């Protein structure tokens, strides 16, 4: 049940950001679909993988791959799908709890949470980088 709610809301969130970034037409649909893929991967991998950081890395990898492929099919900049599809993976919750612990002055918890949030963001970045490097390596002209 929680999973279903997460998948639906994650997709809606990505759709909302796609609207904010002025994505139109069929690209809007595929941007929201990217959000769906991201949350779906996150939920399904979460069943098997204990480490949240590893989960984030794998999701980011798959979603970036999706973005690169879609960008080539639809002939549009990769940014379109990267920035919207990764939205559900942004560690907003964990960032918030880092903030609250900083506010209440629990320094050791703050450091724990802070490092955890940074590792999630790092995992996200690593996924993007791996795909970006491979896309460059394959060396197709992007225009």
């Amino acid at each position, binding site marked *: 049940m929680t999973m279903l709610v997460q998948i639906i809301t994650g997709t809606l969130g990505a759709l909302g950001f796609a*609207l904010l970034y002025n994505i139109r037409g069929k690209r809007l649909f595929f941007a929201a679909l990217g959000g769906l893929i991201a949350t779906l991967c996150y939920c399904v991998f979460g069943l098997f993988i204990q480490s949240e950081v590893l989960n984030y890395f794998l999701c980011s990898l798959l979603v970036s791959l999706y973005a690169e492929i879609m960008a080539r099919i639809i002939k549009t900049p990769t940014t*379109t799908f990267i920035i919207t599809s990764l939205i559900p993976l942004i560690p907003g919750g964990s960032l918030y709890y880092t903030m609250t612990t900083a506010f209440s002055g629990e320094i050791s918890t703050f450091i724990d949470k802070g490092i955890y949030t940074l590792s999630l963001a790092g995992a996200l970045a690593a996924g993007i980088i791996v795909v970006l490097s491979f896309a460059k390596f394959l060396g197709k002209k992007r225009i």
Partner: protein
Amino acid sequence: MKKSLEIIMDIGEQMMISGAEISRVEESIQHLGRAFGAKRTDAFIITSNMEVSLHDENDASYTQTRRVLNIGTDIEKLHRLNDLIRKICAKNISEEEIKARIEEIKCGTVYSFSVIMLAYGLISGAFALFFGGGVIESVCSFIIGIILSLIVKATERASLNKIFAKFFCSFAATLLAFFCLKLGIVSSVDHIIIGNIMLLIPGVGLTVAIRDLFAGDNLSGALRSIEVVLFAIAIAGGYFLSAGIMGGIAI
């Protein structure tokens, strides 16, 4: 060649404004230079400044620099520019037509403000549920999201400093969430605030910064990263201030 340079600068500037990565803009300028018959094209671009030189057959060189401000995210514009560049490189478009297209793209099409407001509400409502909130919290978050869209618009219109604007938006959103708590509508502000914070987190900035850094544009990547960190601190600061104020009042 002078006219070509003008066109290239226009296209590059619009690409920057619509939020393209540096490597994409530089690459596009290289392609355009070749398409316009320049012997050599040099482009140096960082987040807020672009500088391009074209050399023609007679070894005369033409240079222009532009200061680029008001960088945002407008994917529709980027897509159209991309199409235009592809057309120019395929060389089946006249100079007048290119100019007309650039003007058309500059004006752009954006969603109406009511759609934007709805998107703000949708995002915060959805993420309040996503991070484990209840239905009531999601509704509160939805409403605060819509109010936040008005606040963001107001800060943009007042052309506030971007970092202070983030601080203020975060302060206002958290304050509203604490009001919901004080009125007894919800039992905890956590998920409402998370929903609203998702709106303020510079997710695009972070993604573009990473892509810039690892595409070899270290300087731009670093500049953007600094901006992201400052925004994050401003958001936390806004939260601290309102939590401090509301925490001190016992109702």
